[in-house]
């Protein structure tokens, strides 16, 4: 008999004693229908005992920490968990119409506008946002979901012993997941600064409130060690399935060190050399090549190929589709199969004007477009201003209303320009490889190569190239924070970040250096106070 049963019977006795009449009952009954009663009592007691056995056990219809998850497939599924929240980089914003986490990073730069009030963009255009404003909550949630899933995988994968899972495979799965965790934290610290450092899945519901850890410490404790661990793996340089490759590890490390050296952390100039080392390794050993045409980037056949190093994976057939195609279609233009044509984000005239004359990227239907045939009658619709063409999936727009494009986190020009910047800083001036890389990016844009520039001039040329090449890929805001410089599209100068006035008349202050932690999170966890200004 199980322990539960013993106490059960004890209690039964207590009840009987309480009533004090059990004896009387039995005597009384004997005279009447002894046999019947006995039978029933017998049956009843049997039922009681049967019930005791396992009656109150639970068999939950989901996996629990006790479930048998020791196969190679389970290891893979745990690792996959790390990937799942990469979609958070372009996740829809609850309560908005046409709102997406991606919008925030473009709205902040002052180089983007929106056709929609429901994206909340006016708050960002005027810089009057607060902890309850759109996007801060979704970013926070999505990134920590990613951290949680990565923590689970990092804890569980080493415990799996399966003949189908070699040690090398295990190490590589762990390398993938550590890289992903580093990436999620990399976004968190750049956005919110000091955040809770959680490196093991929390299991005690009474102990979930964690205070904030300084951003530099998170780089030192988590981000950099995770990536260095991944760097030791035997991951391939490229991965056509969309998983973390050695190329991705190096690209992220290059970015991490570059940011670590930058203004937000001031982690020391040695970090520039570390950054340059990784980007150079990727450039020389990675086997990545620039696409000949910009529009090759919006051909779904090229997913995870060519210059793409690491992407958020989508597949129209699943259906898990890239939302940016629809979000960036001109508002009510009537050019697509989509019912909603949002026009959520489009470039300011001033930013477009900052491109050099002859830059191919601003030619029609390269990075931007200003007309397209109407979906109903084929007549050309001309828009009041250019919209972004970088996420334009022709097949989705005209036929399926389901975009198959991946969303790029790292591609080759980003790394080329990171090398140029980091090596220039590390070595006190541009080396030939740095200059070649900058010119390779320019040459595709049909721009003249830069000549022999000094350190500062070269740095600014690289920064501007990043704006022009990587615009609307959620890179520019991080560049502004890292460099504490903003290109003024009106004057052509590089303004200091603090004090820069956008074309909308709003001026960056200390407040813009970090996003506020979402109010709902602070309400639950007061240890996060004080919030960022």
């Amino acid at each position: 008999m199980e322990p539960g049963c013993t106490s059960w019977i004890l209690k039964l006795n207590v009840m009987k004693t309480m009533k004090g009449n059990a004896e009387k009952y039995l005597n009384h009954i004997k005279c009447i229908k002894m046999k019947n009663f006995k039978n029933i009592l017998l049956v009843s007691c049997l039922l009681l005992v049967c019930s005791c056995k396992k009656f109150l056990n639970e068999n939950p219809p989901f996996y629990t920490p006790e479930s048998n998850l020791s196969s190679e497939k389970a290891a893979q599924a745990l690792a996959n968990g790390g990937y799942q929240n990469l979609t958070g980089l372009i996740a829809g914003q609850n309560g908005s119409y046409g709102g997406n986490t991606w919008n925030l990073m473009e709205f902040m730069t002052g180089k983007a506008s929106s056709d929609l009030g429901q994206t909340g963009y006016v708050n960002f255009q005027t810089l009057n946002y607060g902890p309850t404003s759109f996007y801060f909550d979704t970013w926070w949630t999505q990134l920590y979901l990613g951290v949680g899933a990565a923590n689970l995988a990092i804890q569980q994968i080493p415990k799996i012993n399966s003949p189908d899972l070699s040690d090398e495979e295990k190490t590589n799965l762990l390398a993938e997941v550590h890289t992903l965790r580093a990436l999620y934290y990399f976004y968190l610290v750049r956005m919110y600064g000091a955040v809770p450092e959680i490196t093991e899945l929390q299991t005690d519901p009474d102990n979930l409130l964690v205070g904030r850890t300084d951003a530099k410490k998170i780089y030192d404790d988590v981000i950099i060690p995770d990536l260095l661990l991944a760097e030791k793996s035997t991951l391939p340089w490229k991965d056509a399935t969309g998983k973390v490759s050695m190329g991705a590890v190096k690209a992220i490390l290059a970015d991490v060190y570059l940011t670590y050296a930058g203004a937000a952390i001031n982690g020391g100039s040695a970090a520039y050399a570390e950054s340059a080392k990784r980007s150079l390794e990727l450039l020389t050993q990675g086997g990545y090549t620039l696409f000949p045409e910009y529009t090759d980037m919006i051909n779904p056949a090229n997913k995870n190929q060519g210059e793409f190093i690491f992407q958020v994976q989508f597949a129209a057939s699943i259906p898990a589709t890239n939302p940016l195609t629809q979000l960036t279609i001109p508002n009510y233009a009537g050019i697509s199969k989509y019912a909603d044509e949002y026009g959520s984000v489009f470039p300011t005239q001033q930013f477009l004007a900052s491109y050099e004359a002859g830059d191919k990227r601003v030619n029609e239907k390269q990075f931007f477009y200003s007309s397209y045939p109407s979906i109903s009658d084929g007549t050309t619709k001309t828009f009041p201003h250019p919209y972004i063409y970088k996420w334009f999936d022709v097949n989705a727009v005209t036929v399926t209303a389901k975009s198959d494009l991946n969303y790029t986190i790292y591609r080759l020009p980003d790394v080329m320009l990171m090398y140029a910047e980091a090596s220039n800083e590390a070595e006190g001036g541009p080396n030939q490889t740095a200059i070649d890389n900058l010119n390779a990016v320019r040459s595709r844009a049909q721009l003249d190569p830069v000549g022999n520039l000094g350190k500062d001039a070269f740095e600014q040329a690289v920064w501007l190239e990043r704006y022009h090449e990587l615009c609307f890929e959620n890179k520019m805001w991080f560049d502004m924070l890292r460099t504490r410089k903003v290109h003024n599209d009106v004057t052509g100068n590089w303004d200091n970040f603090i004090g820069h006035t956008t074309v909308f008349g709003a001026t960056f202050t200390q407040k813009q250096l970090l996003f506020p932690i979402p109010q709902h999170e602070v309400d639950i966890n007061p240890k996060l106070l004080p919030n960022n200004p």
Partner: protein
Amino acid sequence: MMKHFIYSIFFVLLSLQSMAQSKMTGTVTDAKDNSPLPGVTVMVKGAQAGTQTDINGKYSINIPDANAVLVFTFLGYTTQEVSTTGKTTVDVKLAAQAKAIEEVVVIGYGTAKRSDLTGSVATLKSEQLNDKPVPNITQALEGKVAGVEVNVNSSAPGAPAKVRIRGVGSLNSNTDPIYVVDGVVGVDPNTLNPNDIASIEVLKDASATAIYGVRGANGVIMVTTKRGRSGPAQISYEFNGNVSELSRHIKTLDAKQFVQVYNQAFENGQKFATDGAVQTPAKALNHTNFPLLFDANDNPLYNTNWEKETYKPAFSQSHQLNIQGGTDKSLYSVSLGYLNQKGLAPTSAFQRYSIKTTMDNDVKDWLKVGGSISLIASRQRMVSDGNGGLNVPRDVIEEVPILPVKYPDGSWANNYDIDGLEGAPNPINVANNRFGINNTTQMVGNVYATIKFSDELDFKSDFGFDLNTLKNNFYSSLSLQHLSADQGGIANINEYSNWYWQSENYLTWNKKVNDKQKFTALLGFTLSKQSSENVFVETQNFISDALTYNHLSSGSVRSGADSGFGANQLNSVYGRISYNIDEKYLFTATGRFDGASRFGEGNKFSFFPSVGAAWRVSQEDFLKDNNTISNLKIRASIGVTGNQEIGNYRTQTSYQTGQTVLNNAAAISLLPGYIGNPDLKWERTTQADAGLELGLLKDRINLELDYYNRTTNDLLLQTPIPWSAGYVTPNVYKNVGQVKNSGIELNLTTVNIKNKNFNWTTTFLATFNKNKVTKLANGNADIFPGPNFLGENYVVRVGEPIGAFYGMTRVGTYSDSPEDVAEAASHGLKPGDRKYIYNADGSPYYSVIGHAYPDWTGTFSSSMRYKNWDFSFDIRFVEGVNTAANFKHSSEDRQTISNSLATVLDGWTPTHQDTYISQVRNYKYAQDSHFDSWWVEDGSFIRGQNFILGYSFPADNLKKMSINRLRIYASVQNLFLITKYTGYDPEVDTFNQGFGYASSFSQGLDFFSVPRPRVWNLGVQVGF
């Protein structure tokens, strides 16, 4: 179909009745005052045939020969036998029994005389429940019992009501009472046909509820269905037909006003634009851009009142047939019911078919067996799915008036026809082309055997079951832009199957110790298991709307497939002893020892005791013959009950599977799902009750007064956890604190006039409840339980009641005075923007801005009978409560993308600065909207709940048709509503419309509700 069936049964029954030989008639009156006695059973001795007296005490019966003996029986009166020999009429005067048989009430695992109770138990009889046509029991309870608060929050056909007994004693563990239907515990009351109910007992205090231990904390509602009775078969048929109509209006902009506000808004936009860009609509509203909507002078061609176009009068009907009969050894009943309820919203409807049969047999002198089975099938068509979505009630307010319902060519007109508007399809289009249908089939019943060991001791074994399936079929048309056009149409089927069984076994010992002392003892044990399974399938992208969800594989995209399972078990022992000394001193002790699978190891078992005592002062010698005080009883009880309604497996951590994309294909992932709490334990409520029952002037005045005090400890709350924990489900069930409810319940009934022709009774019920959170975990830290609509909406805070609205405080709009301009600028705002209170550091100030639960509620009801006429009414009072008009967010703070409330005409202008409504501007420059004090309105109301006028035909006229009773009535529900609330109805909750599910939060949140209709009824009741 159904109607034909009922008619044919009628004719069969009529023909049976007409096979008579000769007739005897007469009148039965009260021996004391000669008033007619209706409902007296008249039978021929030795035969099965019999009848009942009508409302005037008259009867007519077939007798086999001239020398028959008639037997007249009536509850509370002495039975008389009269020979018919030599008589043509037999008039009888029945004398009341010296000691009238007292009212018997149903309690847990048995019955008791009302006078013997030590607990607080309210009874409602069938007539009281069915005085108005409602689709379910929960709605029928509204305003009927002191201490029972019923919120009919949705006016969708077939919608359940929210029932709370003695305040909210829990957070978001379930706060619904438990329903015990003919002994089957935990039946969903909303699927049952209320016409099948014979009586409802509401067990309120611990002395009454503790026998249900773990499930008793929120009160117990005992539902007893109609069963057979010995005597001639009684056949009754009832019909109700009614028309619902819109009873209140929300004023929105008409066509001219809309165009004016729209243009003004773009003009004002210049002021708010910071980049100096000129503000113009995507396309100006004129005939060049919109030739279908404007005439050559650019005046709108249409001025559509969407409220009027959408909410049209709806006709509903119900039919009910009951047959009850039996011999002294064997009783049976059969009933059939049909309800077809239509809602104000187009296509919304609820249909229910029900069949029920019961049987009770004395098969041996020591053995009784019986049982009942009830089959119910219903179909509810819902058109307002998805709170916050572009659903019908929202589109009624937001569809712009310059659009017609349909264009001259017959195609639907929709907001998205106008560039720049938030693209809502028009509400009538949505109602016709997007719908969810809840199909319910339910089988509930039991079989039992009672073994009588002696006159004192019996044993009952009762096996009860409730098997039900809820299948939701959903379809949204491929033509509905912004809802389902991108998907090419969406069809899904979501099915829940639930199985519940229980085995109850108990001994009852009725012992007379001596002349003065007796007791009833009960000992039982029970096992029960509830399990459920669900299946979900969805496909999208159809070539036509023709097949809807009837052929899912005709959609090319397989967008969803899932299934689930859950089960929980209970294992309990219980006992009760009721001791009665000389009919003066009464004692009850109960105890239940429960084991529940849902709690963690070590916390599965708990004991729930209670004790109660009562003193019938009026039985004492000094009051026995008092002419003024006819009844005086004082009661007191205390006890503990539990709550385990938290869902299954809440102690267990889950690793949830998810799906990600790798290599262009779906890949399964494992994620941290839910953080289990192994320490989870029972929520326990300790309740004390003191009651007084007073009858004056031969019970012409009856007062029942109760004071209660409930303290709930170890509150089970679904507490939000930090997102930083990384779990997919961002909350955990925890035992977090303590809440207290205390209150007074009053029930005063007076018989104002009682004579042969005129009878007038009035009842006043009132409940005053005070609710307060007294302790919370983590050093009394506030908890924000959601919902989260533009900020937190509720706070759980020590010292505040559950249901405290929490938000910003609006104090008006910024004027153009220099101080206001400066203050506005410090928040990035301008004159004409809404003005809120801020903290010293400039951050928004949040505080408690209202309460979702009322200070007091009451019902005043009165019934009169004059000769053959009867008239009665109920008026309900709900006072000291707030309702949040959240719909003002989208209809007052957002111009140029949809229609607005007419209140925006009162918006800020340079010459009208003293207003709470901001200056209109194009939506691009809308000010951030917050959950604030402007939305939280006074939700107090007085409602003319029900008014009925009836007429019963005199028996003489009916005799020829062999009809005993024929009453027709007309009634109206929701005749008037007196309230300051600006929405349709302050009794509302649009955030919680799950089928039969309701939690403590979100009461009083109104984000576009279906208006509550006024209902005009005509009904017929016939008895044979």
